[in-house]
């Protein structure tokens, strides 16, 4: 296995561990077993590889997206976004409240819905980012979580024009009971932060051969 393959393998395994823990937490919230696929992880340059980002978020080609965001500052600068199709979010909210979902196709979200999505997004992103930080000895200083609805095209514009150059993408699918919810996590990082992350992974890689 070459060095970059090994870096990719380590990165994938680190996120696999943290996403696994996030699935456990989600399972506690909805009171059901969660099946989770092994996340695909990629580091991409946003400006020149935006087409590849599109491929990683298949559900964003049309419709509305619900995006939960947790930003961090100080030693590590960037933000993590959890992206789901808004269409699935009504089902997800019902699962979180452990309620039967109504048959309506209502796509209006009220304050309670936003509060739930914000809090669940906060819990999942904290778990994925925080656990990865624990494994790599990185500390994150978070700002308040946010949740926003985006038209898919606006979202595409938003991340192509973001401040940070590099993005780390995880494509994940949660299956909760009979419901499959596909989502993506985009972590965009400043150049300094991505360099530090890769240095830490390389050190971890070197320690395997000590």
């Amino acid at each position, binding site marked *: 296995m070459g060095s970059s393959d090994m870096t990719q393998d380590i990165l994938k395994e680190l996120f696999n561990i943290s996403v696994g*823990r996030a699935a456990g*937490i989600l399972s*506690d*919230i909805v009171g059901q077993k969660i099946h989770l696929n092994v996340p695909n992880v990629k580091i991409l340059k946003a400006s020149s590889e935006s087409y590849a980002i599109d491929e990683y978020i298949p559900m964003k080609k049309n419709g509305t997206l619900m995006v939960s965001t947790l930003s961090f500052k100080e030693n590590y600068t960037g933000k993590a976004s959890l992206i789901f199709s808004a269409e699935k979010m009504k089902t997800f909210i019902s699962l*979180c409240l452990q309620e039967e979902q109504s048959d309506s196709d209502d796509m209006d979200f009220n304050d*309670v819905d936003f*509060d*739930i999505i*914000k*809090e*669940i997004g*906060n*819990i999942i992103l*904290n*778990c994925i980012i*925080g*656990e990865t*930080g*624990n494994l790599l000895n990185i*500390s*994150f200083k*978070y700002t*308040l*979580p946010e949740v926003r609805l985006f038209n898919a095209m606006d979202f595409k514009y938003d991340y192509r024009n973001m401040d940070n150059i590099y993005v780390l993408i995880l494509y994940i699918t949660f299956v909760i009971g009979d419901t499959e919810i596909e989502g993506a996590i985009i972590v965009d990082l400043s150049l300094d932060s991505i360099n530090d992350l890769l240095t830490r992974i390389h050190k971890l890689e070197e320690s395997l051969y000590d």
Partner: protein
Amino acid sequence: MIKILIVDDSVFSQKITANILRKHVEQSEIYFSADGWDGLKKYQELKPDYVFVDLLMPGLDGQSLIKLIKESDSTANIIVVTADVQNHVREEIENFHIMSFINKPFTDEKAQIICNIMKEKDNGKQ
């Protein structure tokens, strides 16, 4: 009657924590705050037996709230319920001599652990 104050900016998490506590703590009076400043005001007014505090909140954050409560009442029984899983955050917060540090979501199992600690405490009214 055991007075409990829950300080959390998420109404969803407030409800989860309160519903589980009601199942496990008989004769409880539960109060809510959605941010740290309101939490501090309610703490001073109500003098609750236990305070459940989230960390990431608008205005006064959970860590600053804990610091202010502990400065005025070093015996305050504070339980942190947070989404933050970082080890260094836990270590930093535990330096304030809190009762427990719990990761969200609050569950029956976690509530049972807290109730056992409450029962062991001299001022536990269970």
